């Protein structure tokens, strides 16, 4: 239970350190208001916000990577407990059972991955 305490304390330390740094910087730093400076940094033709070409066509890759990340992340998380009990399982003679069950799971994992790769879902443009 006490470990919670230390984690809490550590986060507090970090946050205060960061806030302190920013506070001091904003205090010490000069305050010169000028329009140009606060312009968003643009290189090349500034694209007005409204008709952003992105409004209708959404690059699918970002979104796809994220969702596939979630799915495979969960599959990896499922592997952790298995990894832990695998060694004891072998001693207890349950080794093959565990291997096969996880084998099926990994097979599904592989099938999903192969399908993803073959379906060119993750291909980014050049």
């Amino acid at each position, binding site marked *: 239970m006490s470990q919670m305490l230390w984690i809490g304390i550590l986060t507090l330390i970090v946050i205060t350190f960061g806030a302190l740094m920013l506070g001091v*910087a904003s205090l010490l730093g000069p305050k010169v208001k000028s329009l140009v400076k606060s312009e968003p940094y643009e290189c090349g033709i500034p694209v007005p916000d409204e008709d952003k070409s992105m409004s209708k066509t959404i690059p699918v890759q970002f979104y796809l990577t994220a969702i596939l*990340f979630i799915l495979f*992340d969960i599959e990896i998380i499922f592997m952790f407990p298995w990894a832990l009990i695998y*060694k004891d399982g*072998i001693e207890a003679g349950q080794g093959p059972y565990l291997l096969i069950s996880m084998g099926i799971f*990994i097979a599904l994992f592989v099938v999903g*991955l192969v399908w993803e790769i073959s379906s060119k879902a993750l291909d980014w443009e050049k």
Partner: protein
Amino acid sequence: MDFFYIFFQVIKMLVIFLLMVTMVPLLVWVERRGSAFIQNRLGPNRVGPLGLLQLLADAVKFFFKEEFVPKNGYKTIFYLAPIVALIPGAIAFGAIPLGIPLDIGAFNAFGQTWGPYNLGFQSFELGIGVVFVLAVASLGGYSLLLAGWGSGNKYSMMGALRACAQMISYELALGLSLVGILLIYGTFSFNDIVNMQEGPLNFSIGQKDIVIGFLPNWGIFFQPLGAILFFVATFAETNRAPFDLPEAEAELVAGFHTEYGGLKMLLFFIGEYGHMMVASALMTTLFFGSYHIPFVTPDGLLSFLNSFMGAGFAKWIQFLIFHISFMLKVIFFLWVFVWVRWTVPRFRYDQLMDLGWKKMLPWALFNTVVTAVAMLLLA
């Protein structure tokens, strides 16, 4: 849970955090000197001996930079991003044991005797060490997204999205590569893992135990492929070296950093180098036997030291030696980071993602399956 125990704990945490924070300028110095050395030039040597104080000068300069927020950015998110960048690194680093636990004898102060304490040289030791670090690492992505969204301009947004996409892709490989080593160790807590790596390399095939004297019992020998995958994944995780396309100057105008300057930029650097330190620390603890010195066992060293100095003092020396060995290993890996950054050319984004999804992930999976089958067959 008496007063002194808490006091010592807090002191310990502060020391560890400051250790990390002070390491950062050092690393920057190493980076600048290293890159100069690789590119056959001198690097900063004006300020202080060998340019060591250069970083101090930079820090002071940063303090006096002006703070401003871009026009259509979100003020709160803009300021929140640097702080969020700090947190994951620091907390992850806190979980990793930096040295041998220190036990302080009973002493009396304020009229009562305070019992002996055994302080582990880490902020907090958790039963779920490894997966905790992974979880906290996954929070790292938010700083990028917040920075991108807060600064309001299209380039930083695109840069943030790309950086985040890259990070999460390699997080997969990171997690999967760890599964292999976890299969071997069978536990999450770092202390157990470190204790398992003591003494010469020994494993059992069938009923016979095989001991190889000249090799230390480190994780690398059990999981070579896992180690390599892990190390490469950490490169991508920290947006370092070959994988630093998102905030590469030439490509996307420094990606999500574009709008940041001054101290906020420094905080981002601290965050980045913090992640690097966590990565190398993980590397050493999981695969290179943390503070263990190859042919020396902690008790052996202690008895050797007792032979020519007092018991209490010997314990401190032993604590110090092991800590130094751990730090040496970490510094070595940090150097590898710098070394790789200035030698390997940068990946193109789609190559980078392909590597992550189509190369690293399958290999990590392969590695896990092979280890599992091997363990079963050789049990």
